[in-house]
């Protein structure tokens, strides 16, 4: 603006405009602390490239997580207090695929001289190597098998994680200069130190299947789940016979059962000693297994087995549930005299795994043969030797392994640079607190959209990926359900607040309240970040916590005005359109016609954030017409259309007092049920053209 806006509040606003958003619970729950709120919002805006960028900053191998992450973030998601959590993992998958993650190339330069050895190439080892390369260290990965990836390669079946995905990540690491030593089982750490490695990261996983400890466990036809899946994954196609039993209730049991179906077994039964509610496997996995014809037998446990007439005769007892154990799950107790026999061709045991650490490593071990480490520095009892992943935690998850690999890389860096570990400063505030019933009640309920799945018939024949990808519209709609936790409104200057109670009266979710001292408070854990109060506060005392949200419309508008001025197309029409509604609806293509009709789109993140001043600014800079296009009933927030119309009326009143026709300002619904807004828009442009003509003629008459 050419005129100086001298306003003491504005000056102070500038000083104070540092980011104050709070960390949402999804991010807290993610082992990698990925900025979920951020990238979900970018997907909602249709900005996949930017979303992918945010994802890559927080995750070395997002394409892998996009397939197999157990998504603890979704369990923590606050939307589940309203209806169902956001489908965060599936949205990540969408961003990774549509953002072109596989095309990204990475380089790394060696700037340090100390060599580091990584023992084991599971996700923990790969992540550690990735970050050490980024820090400039020469890194070598030692892997016992012929290929890299650990459980990603030999555990998780291909129908859940295609091998090309792992290959791509491995290729990237090679491109970054990581030295790969496959078929190399490390038997002594001292040897590595002798070879000149200054630090070693031990991440050998938990591959030793636990034994049931019952008679006949060694019989032919009995195989443990990890071994079975490894053979399947290495393409060995083990022969199973017709009837297969899988013992266990975790994800490995599910994977083994589903792999058995795919290998052609006629009947696959899962034997689990508790009931379905206690099953540790993820509900989606169980659901998909059942769809594929896997049968379940609950409250049974094998007690002995024997090979007879080419088949396995398995003796089982029935169980009932007793008192909860230390973990809170009810303990199964055998029912007396309930023994019975069943026959199978193959029995797969999947009751858990433990790490197997060579004694020659001379590492101190703890519970369940896991390596003992300092939780902050990941150091073991031996100097310069660090450990992480399943080898430390026992069987866990890919994301936990990635997080521990990343942590190890930074701690190894501290160690090699002789620095005191610079522990991540958790200075940022987190958002805590449940949503209140009155807030929940007023939040619009929107159904969670799941990505499509391959139909069960098509799945069981081969190992093709089961889960497909969202289309644009579905991804955008799903992402829009996010409540934007921690990005809401705050009163930037209490002394500026005139306690007019506007915010308290107009908030659709009844968030602001008067405290006992008569001061207005906007509790961060309830605010839905709709921005209505920000635009309506007569004292301009409220701002959105995220600085980007504060500047966004101004910047987009100035950008559009500048481009329009350069192109000199006439007449100039400015359209403020909801960025969330622009994608997946085809609306963008029909709107974006600046060359032809002189229409310039200013994307806004919900039209409820648009202020009268923005519309007036467009007219000031020469717009002949302005329209505001929101998503109407499809908006994920409440009352937005009402507030847009209020502000449009406010501006129309001003226009008519200035002598400009009120029709120059119109509102449209980008997602109206009755189709296309193109026609309405054409009418509007036509009318604006007419008005321009009229004003030219008036001037002629005047002169």
């Amino acid at each position, binding site marked *: 603006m050419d005129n*100086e806006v001298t306003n003491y509040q504005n000056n102070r606003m500038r000083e104070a405009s540092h980011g104050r958003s709070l960390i949402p619970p999804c991010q807290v729950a993610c082992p990698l602390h990925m900025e979920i709120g951020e990238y979900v919002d970018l997907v909602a805006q249709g900005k996949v490239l930017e979303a992918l960028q945010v994802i890559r900053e927080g995750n070395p191998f997002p394409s892998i997580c996009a397939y197999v992450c157990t998504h603890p973030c979704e369990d923590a998601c606050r939307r589940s207090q309203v209806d169902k959590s956001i489908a965060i993992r599936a949205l990540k998958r969408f961003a990774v695929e549509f953002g072109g993650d596989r095309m990204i190339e990475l380089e790394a330069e060696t700037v340090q001289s100390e060599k580091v050895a990584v023992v084991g190439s599971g996700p923990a080892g790969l992540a550690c190597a990735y970050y050490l390369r980024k820090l400039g260290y020469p890194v070598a990965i030692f892997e016992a098998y012929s290929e890299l990836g650990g459980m990603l390669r030999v555990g998780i079946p291909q129908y859940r994680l295609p091998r090309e995905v792992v290959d791509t990540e491995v290729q990237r690491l090679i491109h970054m200069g990581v030295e790969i030593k496959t078929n190399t089982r490390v038997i002594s750490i001292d040897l590595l130190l002798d070879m000149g490695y200054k630090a070693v990261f031990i991440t050998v996983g938990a591959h030793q299947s636990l034994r049931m400890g019952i008679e006949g466990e060694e019989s032919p036809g009995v195989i443990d789940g990890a071994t079975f899946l490894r053979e399947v994954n290495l393409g060995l196609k083990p022969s199973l016979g017709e009837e297969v039993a899988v013992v266990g209730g975790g994800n490995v049991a599910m994977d083994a059962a589903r792999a058995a179906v795919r290998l052609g077994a006629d009947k696959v039964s899962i034997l689990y000693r508790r009931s379905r509610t206690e099953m540790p496997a993820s509900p989606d996995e169980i659901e998909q297994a059942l769809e594929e014809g896997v049968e379940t037998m609950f409250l049974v446990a094998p007690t002995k087995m024997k090979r007879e007439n080419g088949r396995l005769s398995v003796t089982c007892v029935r169980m009932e549930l007793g008192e909860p154990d230390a973990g809170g799950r009810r303990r199964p107790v055998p029912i007396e005299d309930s023994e019975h026999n069943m026959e199978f061709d193959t029995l797969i045991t999947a009751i858990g795994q433990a790490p197997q650490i060579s004694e020659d490593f001379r590492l101190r071990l703890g519970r369940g043969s896991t390596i003992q480490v300092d939780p902050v520095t990941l150091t073991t009892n031996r100097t310069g030797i660090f450990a992480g992943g399943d080898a430390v935690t026992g069987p866990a998850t890919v994301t936990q392994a990635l997080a521990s690999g990343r942590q190890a890389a930074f701690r190894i860096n501290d160690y090699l640079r002789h620095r005191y570990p610079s522990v991540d400063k958790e200075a940022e505030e987190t958002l805590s607190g449940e949503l209140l019933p009155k807030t929940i009640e007023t939040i619009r309920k929107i159904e969670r959209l799941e990505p499509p799945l391959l139909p069960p018939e098509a799945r069981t024949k081969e190992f093709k990926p089961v889960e497909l990808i969202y289309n644009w519209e579905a991804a955008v709609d799903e992402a829009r359900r996010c409540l934007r936790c921690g990005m809401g409104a705050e009163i930037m200057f209490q002394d500026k607040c*005139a306690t007019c109670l506007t915010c308290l009266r*107009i908030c659709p979710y009844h968030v602001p309240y008067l405290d006992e001292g008569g001061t207005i408070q906007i509790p961060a854990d309830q605010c839905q970040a709709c921005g209505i109060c920000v635009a309506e506060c*007569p004292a*301009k005392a409220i701002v959105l916590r995220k600085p980007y949200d504060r500047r966004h419309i101004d910047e987009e508008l100035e950008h559009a005005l500048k481009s329009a001025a350069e192109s000199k197309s006439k007449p100039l029409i400015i359209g403020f359109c909801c960025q969330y509604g622009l994608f997946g609806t085809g609306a963008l293509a029909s709107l974006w016609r600046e060359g032809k009709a002189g229409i310039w789109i200013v994307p806004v993140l919900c039209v409820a954030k648009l202020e009268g001043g923005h519309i*007036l600014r467009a*007219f000031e800079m020469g717009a002949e017409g302005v329209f505001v296009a929101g998503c109407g009933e499809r908006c994920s927030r409440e009352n937005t259309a009402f507030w847009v119309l209020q502000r449009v009326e406010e501006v129309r009143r001003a*226009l008519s*007092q200035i002598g400009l026709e009120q029709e120059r300002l119109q509102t449209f619904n980008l997602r109206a049920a009755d189709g296309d807004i193109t026609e309405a828009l054409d009418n509007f442009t036509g009318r604006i053209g007419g008005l321009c003509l009229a004003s030219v003629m008036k001037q002629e008459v005047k002169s």
Partner: protein
Amino acid sequence: MIVAEQKSLEEIRRIIAPYEKVLLLGCGTCVTVCGAGGEREVAFLNSALRVAQAKSDDGVHNFSEYTVKRQCDFEFLDVLVDKVNEVDTILSLGCGIGVQVVAERFPDIPILPGVNTSFMGMAKEWGVWDERCAACGDCRLAETAGICPITRCTKGILNGPCAGTKNGKCEANKDMDCAWILIYKRLERLHQLEKMRRYYPPRNFRVIPRPRRIVMKADIEQGEDNG
């Protein structure tokens, strides 16, 4: 609280016409609350005036804006000293009091009113304001059950209701409650209907000297023994 309404753009444009550099001055108290002249409204007016200027070719102005916490006390205006030297006029969006205080503080520059100061009242709901007090200087609310007949009765009569009351509404405006019926109902509820049965003599406002002044501080004589 004081309730005001912004003047029409036409009127504002007319009164600022002779001046080039105009400071739009908001007030952060009453007129902020009633949405007539707080920072939001100052910014909106600024934008609207610029549009008007861009779309017509009469007069070129240079606008700046500023909002003080309160216009009706000199001390709040000290921050304006430098700015005032740079402009040709101040359009105050404070109430009539604010306009006059600014004028008194800055004697060398013309001060223009940007709002019509309307009444003292309350927000009935968001966006709706109602008058409640006429500042008559002789409050009778004790006798009228806390409902002011001077402001809320169209005729301001002290001994109502008049013959024009119908179904609880006023004959002057059928949408408006008859203040005296409200008073009656509330007195009935409080078991104080006897207050209706008295006669209140008309008041002579002419005896009140204007402008009014209230002196609260004690008049201490110079040189008096301080104890």
